[in-house]
């Protein structure tokens, strides 16, 4: 099954809930790891892990919401699903605002839980792919010289070679040379592909000319 690689992390202070969830997830084909407290999870967690985290909202010590914040700050791509013993509107709103995938009330039926888990893993996976792509782009950008980054900025802003040369106080030919080098380093064939990459990496054009 495609989900075999991803792990579902269950954090709940109640051992019987942990046991039950583990079994249910296994019956749905998910591998899981359980933690009895948020702290234990944070201590053992790998920030690059991909998958789903099912968190109990109310736990002694660090509760579910604070665990969610900590994971986000650590750059985790885990999709978070909250479980709670009773609906608490302010907590659920905060959880969703912080990007939780869902907020489920105990007891949760198998279909709902497995479906949400599947969706969570899907989302985590997507996030992971995006994160990898971004990392790749960042890596290529890192090979550019400062002058080339400058030129790239101007080009992404949609300026012609001639204009760039004028702005940078050089000749058009030199700009053309830079452009070819940049496309080679960024491993793109077309100028349009280059612009797309730069935009994903968050590179915008230079500030408008003072003149």
């Amino acid at each position: 099954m495609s989900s075999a690689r991803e792990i579902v992390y269950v954090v709940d202070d109640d051992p019987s809930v942990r046991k039950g969830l583990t079994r249910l997830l296994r019956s749905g084909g998910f591998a899981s790891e359980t933690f009895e407290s948020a702290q234990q999870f944070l201590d053992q967690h790998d920030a690059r892990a991909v998958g789903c985290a099912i968190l109990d909202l109310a736990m002694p010590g660090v509760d579910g919401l604070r665990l969610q914040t900590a994971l986000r700050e650590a750059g985790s791509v885990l999709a978070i699903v909250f479980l709670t013993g009773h609906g608490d509107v302010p907590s659920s709103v905060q959880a969703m605002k912080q990007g939780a995938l869902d907020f489920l009330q105990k007891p949760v039926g198998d279909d709902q839980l497995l479906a949400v888990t599947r969706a969570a893993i899907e989302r985590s996976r997507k996030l992971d792919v995006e994160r990898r792509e971004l990392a790749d782009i960042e890596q290529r950008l890192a090979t550019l010289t400062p002058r080339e980054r400058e030129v790239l900025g101007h080009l992404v802003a949609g300026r012609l070679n001639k204009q760039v040369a004028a702005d940078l106080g050089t000749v058009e030919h030199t700009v053309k040379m830079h452009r070819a080098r940049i496309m080679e380093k960024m491993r793109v064939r077309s100028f349009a592909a280059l612009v797309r990459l730069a935009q994903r990496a968050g590179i915008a054009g230079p500030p408008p000319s003072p003149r």
Partner: protein
Amino acid sequence: MPVTIADCPAEAQMTWIDVAWTAAASASLTLGGVHLFVWFKERTQVARLWFFALSVSVPVFGFIELLAMYASTPAEYVVASRWAQPPLFLIVASMVGFVRSYFGTGRTWLAIATVATRAAALIVNFTSGVSVLHRDVTGLARVELWGGVVVSAPVGTLNPWIVLTVISNALLAAFVIDATMALWRRAGADGRRRATVVGGALLTCIGVAAVMGFFISAGTLRSPTPLTPLFFVVVVAMGYELGLDLLRAVQLSRSLAESERRMDLAAQAAELSFWSWDVRRDRVWTNARGRTQFELDTAGPTTLADLLHRVHPDERESLSTAIREAAAQDKPFERELRLSLPSGNVRWIGLRGQREPDGPAGTVLGVAIDVTVRQRLEREAAQKRSELAHLSRVATLGELSGSLAHEINQPLMGILSNAQAAQRFLAHDSVNLDEVREILADIVEDDKRAGEVIRRLRPLLKKGEVQLETLDVNRLVGDVIRLTRNDLINRDVATNVSLANDLPRVRGDLVQLQQVLLNFIMNACDAMDGQPNPTLLVATRLDDGHCVEVSVKDSGPGVPPADLERIFQPFFTTKDHGTGLGLSVCRTIVNAHGGRIWAQNDPAGGATLRMTLPAMAESK
């Protein structure tokens, strides 16, 4: 000195002596008759019988004395003088008897000696000489008394045995003086007057007679000794006192009737009824109110069984025992009991009874008061208290509802996921039966757990009667902490529990005491809202050996000193949505358990709510 009959005053002519003697005799007899009648009606007053004896003896003596005074020959005189002695003996004896019974004082030996010497004189009277006074009477002297009345006086030799009468008189005087002084010392104003009048009359009588006797025997005075007037003085004095007693009795009965009326009025105002039970005859008497109260037949006698028949069967036996014990062992009793009346009414009465004070074991006296209304009000008040406690409990649980839902949903979550996992495993071909068995065991465990939460919760929500039972306070604390656990977690409260070992048990209502602790914990949590590191310490301990103390300490800002007492008052609250009833209901509950509840601030910060409950004796 011979005297002839012709010298004597003509019998046809009445002298003042005749008149005086006759008047004294009839007055004496009348008085005696009156008091004989009184004695007949009231046999305990023996003095009246003695008085009657005296009042009869005096006229007899007086008649004989008259005969002596009018004797025309020595022989006549001797006969009269001899026969005057028996009534004289009776007079002395009744004087002694009267003083003894009327004063209640006087030495027995003196009394006996007086009467004995007088009896001896009586014997001598008929055996030696012509009488105890004279050996012989040789003649009669004519003596003119006041008013020109001439009487006879004896001339002859005295009987030496006359000394017996002198001794007897001396003894009588001694006896009367002693008895009078004893009464004087002992009695109040009334008794002193009695001592003065009766004792004074007697002593005057004895004294005058002695002085006259002395002069006559010495030959200085030639005269008969007219004792009748002296005795009459005594009769009048005694009759006067006895008459006063009658008057007093009348006044007494009048004031008794008045006080009875007042008592009736008071009894009516207080709705009291009186009853008494004559043990020997088995007769119950009650006043009119009592008959209405117990719905007793107005006609015919009532027995104790009739009365007990009106008492509710549950209490009949114990009341019967109490009444019989009151009669037999002088053990007063007091109780409240139900009457099941023939009309079908049920009333509550307070009943008190005791043996008649200072009386024999013969009568039990008591009062009864209708307490039906008070009982009903008390029951209603208790019900109101219980309802208020219930409301306050439900309100407190309402605050906890989220946590309670969590407590139940946890095991439900375990059950559902385990069960559905099992269904899924079973849908596959390869079933691991061991795992299914394990799953089922876990489901059973979770189910029990959910049941346990409900078990703990149900009585708190139930609206029930107060049920006293023997409780382990530590277990009670454990239960309440389980119920609040989730709330404490949600509020980030660190909870420490310190339970004392070997705590004695307490007697109380589990639900109400849980409610108190629940309120303590909720209040502590509210006090710590927004405070850094909220910490709760729930502790039990044995307080000076007689009380079990439960305390809940928080790490909040403490209670303003002015409010330490006020937080237990109804409607006092510092919370936005508080009813102000929680702690006031707690105080009612703890007080009803005979315990104490209070709040105090800790020097190190935070406040502590405490309650103590009386420990049960170690006999479990």
